[in-house]
């Protein structure tokens, strides 16, 4: 077995060759992150992931979480690994060292997470939610609140959650009914029930900090009347010590398709009348706070999905090299011909190269989104900040929506490579396919992601972010055109970029016309074609570098890797982009059947 979880050569390629992250160390903020340090971070993350976290994946899937008398126990094997993870201080890699973070570039943190999250993302959700909740405190908390909560959270001593969803408020967060009433001492009494709360209750930490969205009595309806509160499981005194148990009761956990190691809880607050919370930020500004945190959260969900795909591809690749079945097609008639590893069969190769191209493209995309975040942090002026923020904002629905859709397909394709064994629990694919599925749903369903792209991102700032993004793509095309072997994919990518710009203009205009419903019925296809073009851009970018390195005379062990890069875009431009072009024709034609059909005509 060559590699597991993620291909280290490819990670190094993206970090050092494609994005040259070491350049960030020219800025004081990231000066410590030289290539050697970055490599060591990734190596040690891999070490912990492979030796400690990965062995919990299957066991935690089988064991799951157990609910009894309001308490939840996580899979036994999590406890020790959580301690090791805390000791290593991996939880808040990109955050301010003053509060227990490591000040690391997000792009590098993503590379470390490629392994850590990839080893068992159900386990890593406890960390991811804690990190996200901590960031809310860091961004919106008072100095006092930061002192009380932040360090304990960023070190993993306490964990965090995110309480948005209610039975009647899923995609429409604005419909929530959890209520808050201000008390004389400045705290708020919270009452309401939340469902589907990841890591909402468990036995790995002495306290759990719940950021809760609720409506203050008398506040306006909808999203404008929502405020954000910190509701700790155990009350936290001003000096940081623990007080009495707060009235947050876990009333049950869900039995789910996948991610069995992560508890999905129903929580009732104030059922006994005694749930207290602290206002985080300003009254009625809760949704705005959520929006500020959304990019991180969505990028993380994209990463969760993508790591399932990365795992799946490597398992399938190893399996295809080892599983002997059938003769080579060229020797079909020769009854003495030996059976061969299935990697020799054309249809298996089709599956492998499809998975390879998407996995690589998605890794580049996610790290690039992280790099945008880093560039915002070191930007020289407001224009530069706005540019990278804009590009990141446009890419986020792709990172979450597109990536998870493709990740699910890849897991399914990888399972197919295993044949019948893929469907059997002794092999890792059926779990990956179950685990990956939720990433298309939570943190805003992919339908909501597509609407975000079409309804918000496309026309944001008069379309400047989109134009900036297309400009970045065109630069790569221009470079590729200088390289002989990349003529065909460069031309195909350029055509797709130009067509996407036209499609964007038209669907954007339609979305503001009386045909708005038709336009939104094509929001998801539009997200998918945008994602395809982003993939082509990333793969072409990789191939440009690979071709240059080959030209200069690469080391022997790198030759196959670089040639593989050229084959990825060759495949993508030749086999995927024609489909993308077809889908773009369908968007342009905007067939209205889905809107016109009457509800009765759906039958049933």
């Amino acid at each position, binding site marked *: 077995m060559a590699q597991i979880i993620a291909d280290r050569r490819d990670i190094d390629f993206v970090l050092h060759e494609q994005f040259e992250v070491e350049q960030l160390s020219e800025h004081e903020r990231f000066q410590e992150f030289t290539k*050697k340090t970055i490599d060591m*971070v990734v190596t*040690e993350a891999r070490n912990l992931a492979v030796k400690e976290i990965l062995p919990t994946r299957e066991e935690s899937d089988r064991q799951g979480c157990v609910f009894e008398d309001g308490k939840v126990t996580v899979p036994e094997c999590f406890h020790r690994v959580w301690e090791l993870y805390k000791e290593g201080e991996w939880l808040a890699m990109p955050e301010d060292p003053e509060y227990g973070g490591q000040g690391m570039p997000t792009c590098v943190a993503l590379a470390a997470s490629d392994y850590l999250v990839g080893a068992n993302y159900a386990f890593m959700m406890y960390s991811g939610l804690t990190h996200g909740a901590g960031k809310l405190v860091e961004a919106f908390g008072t100095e006092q609140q930061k002192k009380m909560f932040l360090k304990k959270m960023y070190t993993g001593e306490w964990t965090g959650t995110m309480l948005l969803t209610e039975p009647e408020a899923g995609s429409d967060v604005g419909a929530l009914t959890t209520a808050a009433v201000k008390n004389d001492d400045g705290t708020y009494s919270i009452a309401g029930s939340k469902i589907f709360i990841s890591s909402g209750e468990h036995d790995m930490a002495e306290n759990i900090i719940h950021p809760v969205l609720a409506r203050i009595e008398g506040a306006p309806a909808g999203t404008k009347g929502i405020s954000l509160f910190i509701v700790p499981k155990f009350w936290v005194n001003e000096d940081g010590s623990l007080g009495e148990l707060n009235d947050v009761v876990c009333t049950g956990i869900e039995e789910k398709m996948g991610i069995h190691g992560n508890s999905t809880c129903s929580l009732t607050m104030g059922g006994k009348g005694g749930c207290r919370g602290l206002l985080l930020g300003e009254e009625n500004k809760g949704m705005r706070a959520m929006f500020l945190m959304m990019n991180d959260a969505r990028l993380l969900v994209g990463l969760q999905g993508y790591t399932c795909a990365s795992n799946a591809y490597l398992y399938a690749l190893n399996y295809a090299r080892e599983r002997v079945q059938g003769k080579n097609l060229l020797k079909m008639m020769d009854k003495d011909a030996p059976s061969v590893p299935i990697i020799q069969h054309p249809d298996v190769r089709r599956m492998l190269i499809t998975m390879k191209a998407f996995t690589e493209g998605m890794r580049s995309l996610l790290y690039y989104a992280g790099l945008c975040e880093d560039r915002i942090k070191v930007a020289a002026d407001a224009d530069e900040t706005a540019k990278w923020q804009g590009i990141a904002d446009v890419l986020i629905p792709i990172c979450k929506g597109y990536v998870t859709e493709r990740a699910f397909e890849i897991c399914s394709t990888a399972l197919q490579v295993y044949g019948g064994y893929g469907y059997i629990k002794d092999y890792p694919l059926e779990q990956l396919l179950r685990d990956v599925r939720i990433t298309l749903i939570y943190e805003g369903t992919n339908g909501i992601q597509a609407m975000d792209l079409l309804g918000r991102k496309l026309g944001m700032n008069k379309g400047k972010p989109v134009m900036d993004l297309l400009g970045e793509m065109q630069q790569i095309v221009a470079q590729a055109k200088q390289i002989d072997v990349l003529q065909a994919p460069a031309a195909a990518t350029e055509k797709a970029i130009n067509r996407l710009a036209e499609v964007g203009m038209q669907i954007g205009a339609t979305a503001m016309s009386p045909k708005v419903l038709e336009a939104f019925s094509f929001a998801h296809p539009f997200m998918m074609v945008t994602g395809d073009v982003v993939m082509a851009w990333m793969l072409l970018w990789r191939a440009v570098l690979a071709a240059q390195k080959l030209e200069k005379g690469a*080391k022997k062990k790198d030759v196959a890797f670089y040639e593989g890069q050229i084959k990825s875009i060759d495949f993508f431009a030749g086999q995927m982009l024609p489909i993308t072009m077809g889908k773009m024709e369908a968007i342009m034609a905007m067939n209205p059947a889905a809107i016109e059909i009457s509800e009765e005509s759906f039958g049933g």
Partner: protein
Amino acid sequence: MLPGPGARKEKNVDIVVLLKQVPATESLIQVADDGVSIKTEELKWVINPYDEFAVEEALRIREAQGGSVTVLSVGTDKAVEAIRTALAMGADTGVLVNDPAALGKGALATARVLAAAVKQIPFDLVIAGQRAVDADQFQVGPAVAEYLRIPNVSMVIKTELLDGSIRCHRTIEGGTVVVESPLPMLFTTQRGLNEPRYASLPGIMKAKKKPLETKTLADFGLDAGALEGPTARIRALSPPAERGGGRIIEGESAAEKAAALVKALHEEAKVI
């Protein structure tokens, strides 16, 4: 050795850990074209696992007693990674002897170089892996002790530091034996001694700033000639023979198959 709660810091102990970088056991090992070495281009390198125990034990002793931990390695530029990893785990200083004349000369020559290097570092204790998992020679640690003229205890699974001496529990066939040695001394590690820690992120950040010196034989007043002498030279390397396919014993009934199996084991395999 784990300090109990409130353990008193007794006395500073200066420790040198001998560390070798070896190919990861998961690597595919292939014989190089010269027939006497292995292909190194695509290998993944790690700290020799027994040396990881040594680093961990040294850190635990230092945490309990105070003192210092120096990591010493003979190797190429590549070995810097292994030393940095030990520094990230918590060691204080690194020394790499990087000299073509010191490489590939066999266990005793390596031991001479290490001993010469150790002599330049103040030490109370030297800890080495019982063996490196690449060449499996079991020689370097004890030979260094010989060259340094200090006591040596092998295969240690537990240590207790006393005043000016150390008590070591070492494995022997079917049990353990407890021996005591005055300091300075050298011991080698056995599986079970401890569970090596992972490098923490803050540890990684600090490692880069810790001193790591590179030395050559000249720094110890040794020249290549001094390392010549009786030594084992590799004449040929070959991968182990591929395991042949299994054989299924045929037979009508279980009894018949059992009889055939006994016959095969007795007459062909000659194991019963």
